[in-house]
């Protein structure tokens, strides 16, 4: 078997979803090859057809999808004409897949060990003890340091990173020659992301396993893959060796992607920070302060007799925010970012300490317009799907102001223009909007009551990079126009450094560092901050100077 052997060969593949009379093509005349031992990256934004392509290779397309033409060959056998039984034997043993959302992709009722072991049982004959030993070995292989404990745990009892590792163990345990990894790091913290990608590279080197890495994140592809393909709207836009491809992109779209990718470092190895340079806020007064804030989560006591307990999530936080500035709050998931945000907007009442807006303690209702508004991470879940956008924008006005119907409508119309949408969007339901449009609507809903302080909880993390850039630009414009103050919560350092003046690092509920963005980037004090910065850089293929 030569090094150049072609494992997978897709020729002219076209997949569509029939809707009524016409067929919506999601994969359009795709041809690609995966060689033995190589890592091929497929880069594309959501809806570009990359996941569907992978599912087609696995034979796991949704029931509604139709393969309209083309061939998928695996080591010379045409998968599409293969008998179902034959094909089943290939799944897992020859070609396996790491799925996008490991939480949903594991059966919640079975232990992780049982599910990983099941893969082995389907493709290899061993004794009971051997199955178990091999499963434990695979769990260890993917960097789970206590395989026996993980074996007996249920999916919900593992952290996101551990679940992703277990998913990887399941994918490799039967010794496949080709692994399709669909956004394997998207839901993870930067520190964990780097480690998982490292693991993929190691597995590739150690076993010569071919990997198709699917991602929307240019940096992930750039750092991991030998060769890459850029997809857009179901077509291949550009393909080539990774270094070459992104250093000298030939098409407009790839150039756009490269430009939109947030970056900390330029190619020359020097630092190029796009931190917000707006320094005028420094002369401004404090709009908002937190003093010695402790936030708790009530834990429900069990049974009738259970005592009420509460768990401390935020420990002794002190923050003051000046008018017009953007303060970033970074930290990995579970560090208490969202809890802090909820406490500030008043969604969590289990707090001790002082939260002040314009020097007025936030007890009781206070000055309504001064109350902060919030933009949530998931615009899908946070907009009521049964109401039209116009209604959703008007509602806060009904609740918080005494404006007449006519005035309210005028205000809604003004706001929808401000966030870059047209009047016709007022008549649409959230489900009829794209992710970026929905987030624009959510921003409009937050700004419509003229708040001074807006809390943005991961406002761009569910969006594609090109859309991310647009939304960040919009936020900046709105900030200048209305002299808004932002609290910007994110796990993505690259986004944070693009928009924030100051950054506060949250680690296990404590603020370990809070300083000017540039200062933090150049001279991080705390070990954790250094680790956080480093993993963001490693992910981009750079090393610390």
């Amino acid at each position, binding site marked *: 078997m030569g090094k150049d052997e072609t494992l997978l060969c897709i020729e002219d593949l076209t997949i569509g979803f029939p809707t009524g009379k016409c067929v919506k093509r999601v994969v359009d005349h795709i041809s690609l090859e995966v060689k033995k031992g190589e890592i091929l990256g497929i880069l594309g934004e959501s809806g570009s057809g990359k996941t569907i392509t992978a599912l087609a290779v*696995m034979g*796991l397309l949704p029931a509604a999808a139709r393969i309209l033409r083309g061939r998928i060959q695996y080591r010379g056998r045409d998968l599409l004409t293969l008998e179902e039984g034959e094909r*089943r*034997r*290939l*799944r*897992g*043993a020859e070609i*396996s*897949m790491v*799925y996008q*959302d490991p939480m*949903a*992709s*594991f*059966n*919640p*009722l*079975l232990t992780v060990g049982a599910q990983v072991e*099941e*893969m082995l049982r*389907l*493709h290899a004959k061993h004794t009971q003890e051997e199955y178990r030993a091999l499963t434990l070995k695979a769990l260890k292989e993917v960097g789970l340091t206590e395989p026996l404990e993980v074996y007996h745990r*249920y999916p*919900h*009892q593992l952290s996101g990173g551990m679940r992703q590792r277990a998913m990887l163990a*399941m994918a490799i345990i039967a010794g496949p020659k080709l692994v399709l990894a669909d956004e394997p790091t998207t839901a993870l913290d930067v520190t964990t992301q780097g480690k998982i990608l490292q693991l993929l590279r190691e597995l590739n080197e150690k076993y010569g396993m071919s990997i198709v890495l699917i991602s929307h994140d240019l940096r992930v592809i750039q750092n991991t893959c030998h060769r890459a393909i850029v997809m857009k709207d179901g077509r291949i836009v550009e393909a080539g060796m990774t270094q070459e491809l992104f250093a000298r992109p030939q098409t407009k779209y790839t150039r756009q992607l490269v430009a939109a990718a947030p970056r900390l470092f330029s190619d020359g190895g020097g630092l190029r920070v796009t931190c917000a340079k707006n320094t005028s806020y420094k002369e401004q007064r404090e709009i908002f302060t937190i003093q010695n804030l402790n936030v708790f989560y009530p834990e429900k006591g*069990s*049974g*009738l*007799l*259970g005592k009420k307990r509460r768990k401390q999530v935020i420990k002794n936080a002190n923050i003051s925010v000046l008018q017009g500035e953007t303060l970033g709050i970074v930290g990995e998931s579970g560090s208490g970012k969202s809890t802090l945000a909820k406490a500030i907007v008043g969604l969590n009442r289990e707090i001790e300490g002082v939260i002040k807006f314009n020097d007025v303690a936030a007890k009781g209702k206070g000055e309504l317009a001064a109350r902060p508004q919030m933009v949530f991470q998931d615009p899908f879940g946070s907009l009521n799907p049964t109401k039209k956008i116009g209604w959703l924008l008007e509602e806060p006005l009904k609740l918080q102001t005494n404006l007449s119907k006519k005035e309210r409508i005028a205000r809604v119309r003004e706001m929808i223009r401000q966030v870059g949408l047209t009047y016709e969007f007022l008549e649409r339901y959230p489900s009829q909007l794209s992710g970026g449009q929905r987030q624009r609507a959510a921003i409009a809903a937050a700004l419509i009551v003229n708040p001074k302080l807006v809390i943005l909880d991961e406002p761009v993390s569910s969006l594609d990079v090109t859309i991310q850039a647009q939304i960040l630009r919009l936020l900046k414009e709105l900030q200048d126009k209305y002299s808004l103050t932002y609290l910007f919560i994110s796990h993505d350092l690259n986004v944070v450094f693009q928009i924030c003046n100051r950054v506060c690092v949250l680690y296990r509920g404590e603020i370990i560092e809070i300083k000017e963005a540039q200062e933090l980037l150049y001279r991080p004090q705390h070990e954790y901050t250094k680790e956080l910065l480093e993993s963001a850089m490693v992910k981009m293929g750079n090393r610390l100077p």
Partner: protein
Amino acid sequence: MQMGMKGTVKKIISLLMSLFLTSILTFTAFQVIPGDSALIALGMDATEEQLEEYREEMGLNKSLPMRFARWLKGALKGDFGYSSQYQMQMKVSTLIGDRLTVTLWLAALSFCIIVLVSFPLGILNARNRSGTLDSLITLVTHFFMAVPPFFLGMIITLLFGIILKWFTPGNYVSPEEDFQRFLRFMIFPAIAVAVPKIAMLVKLLRSSLLREMGLDYVRTAKGKGMTDTSILYRHILKNALIPVITFLAMILADILAGTILVEQVFNLPGLGRLLVSSIANRDYAVVQAIVLYIASVVIVINFLVDLLYQWIDPRLRKD
């Protein structure tokens, strides 16, 4: 696992407390109802002395908590006093005991039929999604969902009793008399009780299975190279059961409380009919006992379902 034990003990304690609260409520409710229980027991012709003597004897002159303690003590031993509709000649416990046997058998039989018929049908239905069989089963279930059990009872009596002569309508045989004939008779009311519930359960199971089939973990299982059948039994079924269990518990509580209409149609001496006649005759001792029984059944079933859930779904276990 130790925490699990602790949780179970806590649950048992709260179960006992709810049962105790239920007994208080049941007792007090009947004290609030106007009417003199001595007069009801002895009838309108009783003299003042007889009434007073009765009150003294039954402890009716004592304070409310004293009377409750006395009642509860009796209830725990299964002694609820005497039934007034049988002129105080019949013990409430014997009366209910006889009727309970009938109701329990009916409940057990119909519950078995429900589970044994609806599970295979539901699975068959879901596996043949949008096939002819699926549409046929859906059509039939829709029809039977709309048929009330007593009407079905009448049809069954007509078809199996009068036309086919598989049983003699109205001729109930008690289990002590002839157990085989008792069972042969009971199977028909059990079917009448079961059919509408089967129709609902098949529909619920089908939609629950179909929902689970669309989830990501099923795709994962398929990606492992499993066959559809083993995916169904190893992965999907247990997940799909979660909503079904709640419904099964509701059904069980419902039929354990007595099925008055079906009992009436088949002339069964069940709990439902006893309850109705006791209410009509103001036989409060019996009504009180039946109400306590029904409430306890519901509480205990909920408790068991709770335990069952924790056993099935690890996410509900606290640790």
